[in-house]
């Protein structure tokens, strides 16, 4: 038995690594490269790196200048989201246990990285979030209602999440947006940007495809002008020019965070509109004629026939645009805004006297936090595509 396994292993190695001279050379070079890379990385992470800089600045990196006695607002939001995730996981049971296991494992590893014993409070509060997840998971099986109602609960739950989080952050005095920061600010900006950008982009795409000349051309002009300049330039624009253009009553009163969200979603909308336009063009004309023949009016056929097919066709492109927006939340730093999002906080941490030159540690940590979200978004879209059967064609 063992020898047969060994034989297969050798055969696999022969076929995949040493099938020709060129392959052998490539394998050896790759092995050397991997060895060099891994030894450098591992010896850095476990021996030469001084993680104290992360440890000390963890608060700064995660929530920025958020007041300490108001932290419950963030924890309340986190618990709501984890409980809801638990509920959704239980509802869409088809999502494999593997993913669940991996996410728990990665959270656990993250916690180890931040040395639990030095941050006992943080450790306990994080463990609580896992408990909330399990509570949400169990709650799903305890309540005895029809699956269709549970479906509605999940959808409504996620729909009200953003308003709820904003409510948590604003009720009973609240925390002004200039005090928001860190990873938390990135998440909030990307989240609102995605939602409003998608809605606005959808409207723009429909407007551009419309036969009403004025609407069509004004949408086209908007899309093309926005796409002409980089996002940094628009953020700069929001910072410098918009105060001049607003009515005098509002000038200097419009929150900078609000301005940033408007720019982020307005910018993303232009790109999303172009993506959805591609989707609209891919919908077969017969579909529209069939909808007409069934007696649907313009609104019905658009929302029930055309858009679902158009959006379904462009889900990968949409998700990569969302990922781009998520990564672009770092541009606040480039536009010189007075916000400390994650990257800005990292830079601030590096300017502390005792941590000068520890850039590898800080940027590695920051990169990991960004990477987790973008990678899981791209995996999510892949799974979603498979579920919809988009890739079966070829």
């Amino acid at each position, binding site marked *: 038995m063992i020898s047969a396994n060994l034989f297969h292993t050798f055969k696999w190695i022969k076929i*995949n690594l040493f099938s020709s001279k060129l*392959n052998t050379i490539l*394998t050896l070079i790759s092995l050397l490269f991997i060895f060099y890379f891994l030894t450098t990385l591992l010896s850095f992470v476990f021996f030469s790196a001084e993680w104290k800089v992360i440890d000390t600045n963890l608060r700064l990196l995660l929530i920025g200048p958020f007041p300490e006695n108001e932290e419950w607002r963030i924890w309340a939001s986190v618990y709501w989201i984890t409980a809801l995730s638990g509920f959704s996981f239980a509802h869409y049971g088809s999502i494999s246990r593997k993913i669940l296991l991996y996410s728990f494992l990665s959270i656990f590893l993250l916690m180890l990285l931040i040395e639990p014993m030095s941050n006992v409070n943080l450790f306990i509060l994080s463990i609580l979030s896992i408990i909330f997840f399990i509570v949400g998971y169990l709650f799903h099986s305890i309540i005895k209602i029809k699956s269709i109602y549970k479906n509605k609960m999940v959808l409504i739950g996620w729909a009200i999440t953003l308003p709820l989080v904003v409510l948590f952050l604003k009720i009973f005095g609240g925390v002004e947006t200039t005090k928001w920061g860190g990873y938390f600010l990135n998440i909030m900006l990307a989240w609102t940007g995605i939602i409003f950008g998608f809605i606005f982009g959808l409207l723009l795409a429909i407007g551009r*495809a*419309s036969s009403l000349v004025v609407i069509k051309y004004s949408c086209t002009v908007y899309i093309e002008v926005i796409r002409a300049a980089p996002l940094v*330039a628009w953020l700069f624009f929001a910072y410098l020019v918009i105060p001049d253009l607003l009515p005098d009553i509002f000038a200097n009163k419009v929150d900078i965070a609000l301005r940033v969200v408007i720019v982020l979603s307005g910018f993303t909308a232009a790109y999303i509109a172009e993506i959805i336009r591609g989707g609209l063009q891919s919908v077969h004309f017969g579909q529209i004629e069939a909808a007409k023949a069934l007696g649907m*009016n*313009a609104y019905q056929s658009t929302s029930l026939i055309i858009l679902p097919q158009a959006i379904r066709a462009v889900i990968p492109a949409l998700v990569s645009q969302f990922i781009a927006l998520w990564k672009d939340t770092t541009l606040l730093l480039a536009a010189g805004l007075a916000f400390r999002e994650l990257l800005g906080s990292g830079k601030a941490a590096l300017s502390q006297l005792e941590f000068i030159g520890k850039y590898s540690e800080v940027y590695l940590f920051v990169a990991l936090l*960004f*990477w987790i979200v973008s990678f899981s978004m791209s995996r999510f879209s892949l799974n979603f595509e498979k579920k919809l059967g988009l890739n079966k064609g070829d």
Partner: protein
Amino acid sequence: MIKDFFFRTNKRKNNSIQGLYLFFLVIFLFYLFIKISDLDLDFKFLTNESGFALSNQWLTNYNPTDTRIVAYLTGVFNTVRLVVVGIFLASIIGFIVGIARLSNNWLVSNIATAYVEIIRNVPLLLQIIFWWSFALSLPRISEYINFANLVFISNRGIAFPKIIISQLSFFIFIALIILLFFIPSVKNTISSKMNVDFSYLRILFFGYVPLLLVTICILFLVNAVNIDQPSISVSDTNVIRYANGFVVTTEFIAILLGLVLYTASFIAEIVRGAIQSLPKGQNEAALALGLTDYQALSLIVLPQALRIIIPPVTNQYLNLTKNSSLAVVIGYSDLFLISGIIMNKAGHAIPMFVLIILTYQLMSFVIALIMNYFNKKVALVGNQ
């Protein structure tokens, strides 16, 4: 087709919707017009003295007493230089990684996958700042690293030997490059007259390359081409700097590394997708005809894949152009950084923004034009 359908109810309703929309649009534009007319809108401020120094420049001989237009142009040239070098390198790395992802070799394909998945999921700005910090952590210029007196490395940048070409030899080189385009016709005449089929490579290696080498040697001997070795100079006030040679500054290295590696990961995905979308039979048929792996890739697979690759890669080039504005974070004086300085010093934000948008649009237009030309060429080859 679709557009006939949206809002296709009745004409009067359409007109009323449109009228209402137009009404609000006109009010909005009128309001904007009033607001903007309060501000200064002419471009005269660009002719004033700029009054700030720049660390990177190329093609222009800029100094702080020049006008702001010259400063802006310096920025534009800096951006163009960055974009051209960036597109060139990103395409090469992107193609290599994209092909490596489909390699039979398990290790190679997995290394390529890891590269793509790591790089494209991390913000570009973070990568640029990381490379910048890395470049700044190189030894200081007083403790520079010296490779055989040819390459100097320090945290001020990398100094290479510079090739100084006289005017005569410049034209000779141009002539040699033009000669390169005549090789196909030379090949045709030789093969038709002598009845021997020389390959391109043979003519290139045994005809063209020796010619090139001999020319360069002669030009060297008559001192028409010189190599300017880099060196380090110390001034009276103990300021150490690179004196001669071709100096690539730290900022340029950092922004270039960031842009190239980031864009290459996207190009690699495009290349992989395009090759995978071809029918497998193409490659198998090529191998069955006795072509080697390399021949099958370069003669059969890539030419077909190029047709799919070019439009999305054009998009990536445009992204690279716009992303080059991130240079502002690390102080590489590209057009956006310089516009920022001008806006800070002189105000006039709106005219400056118009200028920025037009400049980026012009660059995008040029790139799109070039890529369309390639696209047509590739499509033609496919149709023959």
